[in-house]
């Protein structure tokens, strides 16, 4: 960034004005492609020298324009995202790649395209299951994306370029996992609010710059004296997205938030894209199987008809067991964005799973605004009072 700030303060700055770097790069002649969801294979954009930019709206923005295009009782994140687009807040984008991760994502993509004039717009269809035939289909969809990206960029998306891009993005994933290792100590070396800022920054920068930022942050944090103080409870926040410093600060007022499963956090970085004879198949397999999002249906293989609730819980939530143990989690906040069906339907099952592990949990709903933080605070405090 032009002002020379580094590490945590750079992340803080980017969080407060995300599009600054993208606009700088645009002025230098680079092309920026927006993506609303972490299921979009950003490696394919990086490989063609396009800069991926996460279009996730802004929780601080009051939604005033989206009502003319979207229903009211609808994913508030997508409403916010479209609202920002209608207000021209992302007018620096050269295009958008949307994906059918959820129905609101799909429907909003259609509306987004009709109300805006980006030179490039692509919608990826994505299956709901992780069966072999689903991965095959998804690979075909990524081939379709490859064709339209090549036509737009005027360049060939070669296997070599894609492998390089996968390496850079895998490197970022590895660095993020290393960053989260720094929340294992008691007290953790880094705040949940700082993690939110860093991930937001990563989703606003070209991958190489994001990797540099992560390296800076880690060396800064390892020697810091201004880290979080130890609180009585170590929390994991589970939900679709938690990308707001204000909400995170409510959670962290009387606890240490040391881990999350959110796409404002570690969700997109938990695993690696494996190398594969067909890199697109490697991407399809990674994105469909490794992103732990409620939109994906992991129950039952093709032909299975036997009910097995315990097995089902294990396949949907088993990844949390090791995390809870390693990060010494003493409580889980199950955070729902209002009207989010996929995550709402997971809540009772997740609670059953956490009960089976003996981990206390609480269910909190918010509407992706900053209007009602006091009730949120009361619920979190009451939860902490029951477990301390």
């Amino acid at each position: 960034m032009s002002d020379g700030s580094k590490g945590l303060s750079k992340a803080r700055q980017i969080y407060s004005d995300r599009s600054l770097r993208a606009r700088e790069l645009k002025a230098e002649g680079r092309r920026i492609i927006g993506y609303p969801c972490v299921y979009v294979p950003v490696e394919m954009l990086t490989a063609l020298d396009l800069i991926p930019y996460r279009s996730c709206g802004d929780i601080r923005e009051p939604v005033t324009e989206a009502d003319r295009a979207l229903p009211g009782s609808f994913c508030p994140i997508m409403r916010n995202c479209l609202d920002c687009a209608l207000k021209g807040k992302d007018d620096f984008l050269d295009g958008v790649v949307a994906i059918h991760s959820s129905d609101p994502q799909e429907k909003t993509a259609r509306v987004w395209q009709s109300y805006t004039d980006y030179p490039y717009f692509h919608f990826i269809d994505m299956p709901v299951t992780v069966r072999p035939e689903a991965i095959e289909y998804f690979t075909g969809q990524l081939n379709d994306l490859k064709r339209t990206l090549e036509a737009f960029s005027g360049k060939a998306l070669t296997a070599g370029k894609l492998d390089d891009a996968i390496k850079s993005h895998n490197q970022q994933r590895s660095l993020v996992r290393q960053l989260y290792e720094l929340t294992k100590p008691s007290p953790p070396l880094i705040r949940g609010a700082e993690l939110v800022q860093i991930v937001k920054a990563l989703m606003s920068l070209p991958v190489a710059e994001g990797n540099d930022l992560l390296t800076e942050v880690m060396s800064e944090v390892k020697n810091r004296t201004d880290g979080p103080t130890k609180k009585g409870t170590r929390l994991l926040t589970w939900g679709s997205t938690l990308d707001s410093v204000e909400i995170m600060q409510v959670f962290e007022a009387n606890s240490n938030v040391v881990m999350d499963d959110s796409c404002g956090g570690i969700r997109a970085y938990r695993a690696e894209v494996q190398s594969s004879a067909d890199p697109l198949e490697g991407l399809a397999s990674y994105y469909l199987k490794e992103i732990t999002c409620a939109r994906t249906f992991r129950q039952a293989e093709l032909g299975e008809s036997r009910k097995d609730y315990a097995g089902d819980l294990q396949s949907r939530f088993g990844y949390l067991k090791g995390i809870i143990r390693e990060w010494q989690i003493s409580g889980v906040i199950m955070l729902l964005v209002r009207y989010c069906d996929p995550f709402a339907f997971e809540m009772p099952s997740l609670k059953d799973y956490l009960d089976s592990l003996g981990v206390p949990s609480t269910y909190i709903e918010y509407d992706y605004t900053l209007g009602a933080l006091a009730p949120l605070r009361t619920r979190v405090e009451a939860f902490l009072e029951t477990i301390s």
Partner: protein
Amino acid sequence: MYYAGVDIGSTMTKVVIIDGGDDLLSVIKGPTGPEHRQLANQVMAQALEQANLQIGDISFIVATGYGRVNVPFADRQMTELSCHARGVSVLFPDARTAIDIGGQDAKCMKIDAGRLVNFVMNDKCAAGTGRFLEVTAAALGINLEDMGDISLRATDQVQISSLCTVFAQQEVVALLSRGEKLENIVAGMHSALAGRISTLARRLAIEPRVVLTGGGAKNTGMVEAMREKLGCAISVPEEPLITGAIGAAVLAKEICLKTADEHGTPPAKPRRLEKATFFIEENP
């Protein structure tokens, strides 16, 4: 030794002072009003006067309720959920479920060994709170205090279909002008509210003894409607508005004694009974 609980609710502020034996030395209630942060010290001063004590005599003060951050002379803040659960347990040692029907929210609490273990809250929709009764009573031209008696005279129950408090106002007036009896309409209002609150409560496993608190518990019609919807006996404290403040005072005592056990008795805290302010006054 003396301990105090200050419960600043959205409608009413309650202060309770107890001694080491949990005897109530004073109980003061007053309307909160919009400037609640300026009120806590006044209500506390009244409670001290009633108990014949000075602020320095109180060993520990817990503040609770939605205005709990605005009590500068409090030693600790705890949520009203923990305080109501504790207060209910003191009054009914075998209580397992507490339901507080307040002016602006409804809370359901599970209690185990005298402590809060689980909870659900509604504070997003007025139709599930005391406000629903206030607004519809005003629309019908009757006093909130009379609603219980009126509804117990009902010969039938009218269904209120509106899910929204504002639309329910129109609905009850239309019902009245269509010739429906006032008692039956009021019974229907209680039933509608009780239905919503019991649906909320059922997210927790409801176990007896079930205790109802808050302004809603002073309404005999509401108690009856809850009894009907939950299908079990309901206990009501003599003074349903002060369970939060009682719980806060008892928790104050417990925290103070526990701290003294672990770290020795702390020196007397210099406490100033003054109104909360977030601004430094240039020319006081």
